[in-house]
Structure formats: C-alpha cells, structure tokens
C-alpha cells in the first residue's frame, strides 16, 4: 500500500522543469511560494481523496483474500494478477447490470438532452411570456436530492397511492417497467438543469449573427438548427460527457426503489454491483476490479465523445 501512496504522491507533485519566473531581489522566493500556497489545499485534497484512492483501488484489484494453509493463521492477501477482472467480466450478474445501464443510458441521454435543448431553444427564440418563471420551474427538480426524488416518484408509482400506476402504459414497478420508470425520474431531475446551461449558452450567441440569418430569410426553426445549435456545440458536448458519466454511475434511484419493489435486484447497475461486492459480500478485490472497469468505461466513453466533438467541427 505504501508503494502505491508514494507513486501517487510523486506523480502529482512532480517538480516541473520549467524555469522559475523572472523576479528580482529577495522577494523572488516569496513570490514563488505564494502560488503554491494558494494551490496546496486543493492539490492535497485531490491527492488524498482522488489519486491515492484510485491507486489503492488498482492495488486492491490485483489481490484476493484467501485462507492460507489449514486456515489457522487467518486470511491473507494473495496476488492474483488479473483474475478479479476475469471474475467480474465472466459474472452474469455484472453483465446484466451493464445491460441495464446501457439500455437506460440509450434512452435517458438523448431524451433528456433533447428535451433540454428544445426547451432552451423555445425559451431563447420564441416570444414567450414569463420566461424566467418557466425556466425556474423546470429547473427546480435539480434542487431535490436524488434520494428524495426517488422516494417521491416511488410513491407516485405505487399502486393505490400514486396516480401514475393507472395512467402509465407500463407497469411502473414491474420487472419490465422499472427501467422506463427510472428514466422518467432521472429525466425529471436533470432536464431543467441542462436546459438552463443550454439557455445560458444560447444567450451568448452574437445578435448580429442572428440578424444576418433573419435577413437571409431563415425562419426561427432554421435559425435554431443551423445557426444556434452549431454555435453552442461545445456546451452540448460537455453536457453530453457529464450525462453519459452520470448515467453509467446510476445508483441512488434504483437503490431507493428496492424498498418499494422486488424488481430491482441488488446488482441491478454496475454501481450497485460494486456496493454489493464491497460492503455486503466484503469481496474487496472483486469490488475494486468492478469499480475500475466502470471508471475505465467512463474514461473511454468521454474520450470518444470529445473525439466526436472535435472531429465534426474540424
């Protein structure tokens, strides 16, 4: 463990070869120290709560706990190369959790971001009464903690209590209906937040560009699609990255629903799988391997999205 800590430490505070800033006299030392003082608290936090834990997870994922010999001396950590990763990848429960989260993301991401974008364009472009009021109202669910959002919707979905059970075309707490229900909850929570982000970006579109489009005879829809959306593309892609990463980590909503329905298993998403392996089964090696696979998936997907964003605009 100490090895990993040292490695994390040196990589974060690697002395850079760049020349010291040119300053004169005895103040040079102080002037060089000051930026480091401003940076130090965050750098230390980043080191202690992100870099070291990641390194530690890497270490954990390569070991497993086994009873040695006749089991008299208690369990000990054995180096097992990548076999924890193998165990996770060949576990049908993990595959199912990945399948669930993939289906969830495929529906939630385009639905939520699409709705947010349409609403932002309407607020920005159309003649709308009470613009501030609409945008604030749609934004409010963002202020509701995930646990509470989960509880409120769970009650709304519950037969006999909430009205939705009779209205929705799917059985909201049934084994097939739970996925669209979670999409409904998550879209509710994030649509307004992303709408505000998009709307804020749309406000920065130069007015003379819009004027030029109008003179060229472009209608509001045309202007929105071929002038405004391309200009706020970077914002859209950043939102896309965050939404994809957030979707892969889906945890709170299904966990809360577990108290209301048996349709959500204890390993329903990869995050639940990690939680179960780590804190219920206490299989740290497997949990660490699964969590790093999840982190890897996040990294790969966000790199892919960013690649897509630069290629199309280039």
């Amino acid at each position, binding site marked *: 463990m100490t090895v990993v800590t040292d490695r994390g430490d040196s990589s974060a505070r690697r002395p850079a070869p760049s020349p010291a800033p040119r300053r004169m006299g005895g103040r040079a030392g102080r002037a060089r120290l000051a930026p480091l003082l401003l940076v130090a608290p965050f750098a230390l936090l980043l080191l202690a709560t992100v870099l070291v834990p990641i390194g530690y997870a890497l270490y954990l994922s390569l070991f497993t706990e086994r009873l040695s010999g006749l089991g008299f001396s208690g369990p000990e950590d054995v180096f097992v190369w990548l076999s924890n990763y193998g165990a996770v990848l060949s576990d049908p429960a993990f595959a199912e959790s990945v399948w669930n989260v993939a289906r969830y993301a495929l529906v939630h991401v385009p639905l939520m971001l699409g709705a947010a974008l349409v609403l932002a364009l309407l607020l920005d472009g159309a003649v709308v009464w009470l613009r501030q009021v609409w945008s604030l109202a749609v934004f409010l669910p963002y202020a509701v903690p995930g646990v509470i959002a989960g509880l409120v919707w769970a*009650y709304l979905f519950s037969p006999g209590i909430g009205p939705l059970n009779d209205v929705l075309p799917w059985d909201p707490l049934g084994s097939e209906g739970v996925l669209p229900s979670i999409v409904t909850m998550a879209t509710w929570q994030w649509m307004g937040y992303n709408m505000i982000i998009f709307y804020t970006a749309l*406000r920065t579109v130069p007015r003379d560009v819009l004027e030029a489009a109008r003179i060229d005879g472009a209608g509001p829809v045309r202007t929105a699609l071929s002038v405004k959306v391309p200009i706020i593309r970077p914002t859209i892609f950043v939102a896309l990255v965050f939404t994809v990463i957030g979707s892969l980590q889906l945890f709170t909503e299904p966990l809360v629903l577990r108290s209301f329905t048996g349709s959500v298993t204890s390993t329903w998403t990869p995050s639940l799988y990690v939680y179960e392996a780590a804190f219920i089964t206490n299989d740290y090696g497997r949990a660490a391997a699964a969590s790093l696979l999840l982190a890897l998936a996040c990294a790969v997907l966000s790199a892919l999205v960013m690649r897509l964003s630069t290629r199309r605009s280039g």
Partner: protein
Amino acid sequence: MNGAHRNGSRWTSRSAVHVVLVLATLYSVLPLVWLVTSSTKSLGDFSTTGAFELGEWNLGTNVGDLLAEEDGVFLHWAVNSLLYAGVGALLGALICSACGYAIAKLDFPGRRALFAVTLTGVLVPTTALALPLYLLASELRIVDTFWAVFIPLLTNPFGVYLARAYAEAAIPGELLEASRMDGAGELRTFFTVALPLMRPGVVTILLFQFVGIWNNFFLPLVMLTDPKLFPITLGLYQWSSRVTQFPSYTPLVITGSLLAVVPLIVAFVVLQRQWRSGLAAGSVK
C-alpha cells in the same frame, strides 16, 4: 389576407410553444406539488384521498411526529446536513477559487500538470472512489466520524475548472500588477483584489457545491453507521427502507422530504440572479 394568414400561423406556433412549456412545467412541478399536499395528510387520508387533493390539514401533527421520532434524530440530521454542506461549501469554494485563480493568473511549476489532473478528476466516478476511501478512512480510524464524509466532499475539481474560467474572464492582469507595485504580497492580492472580482463565480461554485454535498448520499451511506452523524438524505433513506413493514414511517418520510427540499428551493429562487450570471460567466470560456 396574406398578412392575416401569417398572423394566424404565428399565433398557432406561439400557442404550441406555450403548450410545450406548460407540459414541461407540469412534469417538473407536479411531483413537488404532490410532496406538499401529501405532507399535510394523515396516514389514513394518504391512501384514501386523491394524490393532489388536500385532506384534513395535518401538517402540524406530521412535523411534530417527525421531530419527536427517535428522540428528535431528524434535527440532528438537519444540523449535520447544514454542517456538511454549509461549512463544506464555504471552505470548498474558497479552496477552488484560490486554486483556479492561481492556475489562471500565476506562474508556478507544475501548473499545467495540475490543471490536467484536475480535469481528469472531474471525470472519475464516485463509485470507483467509495471503496478505497472507506478502506483508507478505516486505516486512519475516521470511519463513522464527521471527517470521513466532510473531507472527501470538499474536493471539487469542477469548481476549480469554473474558478479558472471566472478568474481568466474577470481579472485584468494590470490590476494584479498595480497591486504588486503597491507592495502587496500575492496572498493579499488574491484576497483583496482577485476574490472580490470573482464574486459571482465564487457564489455560483458555493451554491452548486452546497447542493452537491446536501444531495450526496453514496459517501455517507458507505462511511456512517451512527444515526447521529447521518445527513438528512441517509436518514430518510433508512426510514424509507422500513416503510413496507411499518407504514407509519410514510408520513415521517414524506414530511421530512419536504423539509429537506424547501431550503434548497428557497436558496435557488432567492439567489437566482447570482447563479444565473455565474453560470453565464462560466459558459464563456
């Protein structure tokens, strides 16, 4: 004729726009309305009256029951949430602003590397960190203490990213030069010149970090077992998991949820101008 037709279609499209907005608003607000109406009902009315109707006014009793449950543990949770989120956001926003400012405006060894690592930090899923953080905390013997939740939630890489953008946009280099010429040290320049200029940005970081910590659930779930240390989210989750067996927890969970949500909604409504302009400044890179 033509003009009338155009007016007509404009009127239709205008109505269509408002229909869409009304639908989006209903979707967003109705669950919150349900939370309000439900927390005014007794357990009996809860299952017999319509979801959005008011039953007999029972909010006072519900709040009383909530505060009395388990010797007033809900108040502990509220105070804990305020401490985790309030102190955490204040301190976190200051730490982010200092770091973002230094990255934007000062020259120091490792500046680029630090920013690159910070950006990667934004993308690291919290799920991947929970287990190692828990094991590290148990080695430091701080599992099931205030610090196990407080310290990791101070780290806000996205806040640093925003602070850097604000500092770059809002602080003219000449002003810093002038302050240095006056003989002010770098730290003093940060606190007296840079920080006030970054204020809308700092308020935005503070507010969003407050919400982030207030709404956080995974870390307390992993770190805490003593109910006296729980934040509201974890406490309500624990009660909600008993609801199927003990329906009497339902009014407690619902009223508690309402009380947990109201302060945040009020904060967002009151500070509207601040965070809207802060987000705008952050989106202009």
